């Protein structure tokens, strides 16, 4: 078919739109659903600024077609704040200078939460490996690691 009508649940809400099959998931999220917290950084599947959770697992939404996500569930950065209050990782990124320009930040936070969820006792090396798919040009990762470690500490 030359046209598609994917139905995707994002942050608990159903969205559907008539799109070309070539539409990337990141464009469905940003343009069809109007959620612009997910960013497009590199267009070459390197930077991870477009990271969202697909059925709970982090993926680069610029490297997924909307049609691949048809019938699946997505969580974006907007889905982290419940009733207007930030989730612990978002708070930590602010308190520990985990961001400067903020462009990589939504993807970084989505991935950071997943790394700690999968391995609550991750070492610094394991956290860094988990963030292999997320590039930051501003911070040198120092504040990012600090923020993640502080969330890890608080959870203990």
């Amino acid at each position, binding site marked *: 078919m030359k046209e598609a009508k994917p139905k995707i649940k994002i942050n608990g809400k159903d969205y559907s739109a008539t799109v070309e099959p070539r539409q990337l998931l990141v464009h469905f999220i940003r343009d069809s659903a109007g959620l612009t917290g997910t960013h497009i950084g590199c267009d070459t599947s390197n930077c991870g600024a477009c990271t969202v959770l697909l059925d709970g697992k982090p993926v*680069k939404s610029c*490297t997924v077609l909307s*049609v691949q996500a048809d019938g699946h569930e997505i969580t974006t950065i907007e889905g982290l704040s419940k009733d207007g209050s930030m989730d612990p990782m978002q708070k930590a990124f602010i308190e520990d200078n985990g961001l400067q320009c903020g462009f990589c930040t939504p993807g970084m936070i989505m991935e950071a939460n997943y790394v700690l969820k999968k391995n609550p006792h991750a070492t610094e090396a394991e956290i860094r490996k988990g963030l292999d798919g997320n590039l930051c040009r501003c911070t040198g990762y120092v504040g990012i690691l600090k923020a993640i470690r502080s969330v890890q500490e608080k959870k203990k």
Partner: protein
Amino acid sequence: MLPKQFDYYAPKSLSEALDLLSKKDDAKLLAGGQSLIPMMKLRLATPGTIIDISRIPDIRGINRKGDSVYIGSMERISEIASDKEVSLLLPALCDAASCIADTQVRDMGTIGGNIANADPSNDMPVVVLAYGAKLNVFSKSGSRNESSDSFFTGPYSTKVNSDEILASVEFNVKKARHGSAYSRVDRQVGDYALAACAAYLELDDNGRLSTVRIAASGCSDRAIRLEESEAVMLGKAPSKKLIKSASEKAYSSSKVEDSYYANAETKRRALSHVVEDALLMAVKRIR
């Protein structure tokens, strides 16, 4: 850039997918899309039709049946990397699955895609060669098992024809005492391997190596077995010295050339390092 426009189908069965493949001239299969979609975004690939095989139940799953472990071609790399049975029975597969690209790519990428795409530096072909796995290929006329030794025919080229689908990979788990491992040197974080090696060793009752399979990437236009290094070790008792000579053989018999990402000497050294590393780990794991 956006991919060029295409027609899209998401068949629910292998026969439906094969039927589509035979009818559409300019079609590509979409598994995880982590190689295909970046190529389409750069317009290095411009298929007129995309056949998404992610909704075919028969090609998923990790199943132990007797002496074999069957892994469906749509199985995601991250699932394979965290599967307990895989880590116990096929540790080189577990090692390799954990090093491909990054977390996000591993969550979408599939073992079938990594094998069938056959980029010369892909990780799964190396593992498949070392374990002597069988590749189960479906066509409209039926299915067949391809041996891994003859499966990889060149860069991006395998025995899967353009109207066929790689359905699953079969790993045979031997009863003999054996050990296996995977070692890899990266080009850069999240990138392809500069060199990688998977080693599979079997020990007989006299403590001598009865089977030696050493596969590598980064030294040819495809994953290959390092037959000269294997010959160095076969029939002998494993030792650090023996492993060193096998890795030195890999260095001296490597026919690599300079390329944009590394010169020949760097490639040779990386190769001999991963051969030594994989063999040492494989010996340590012999059980």
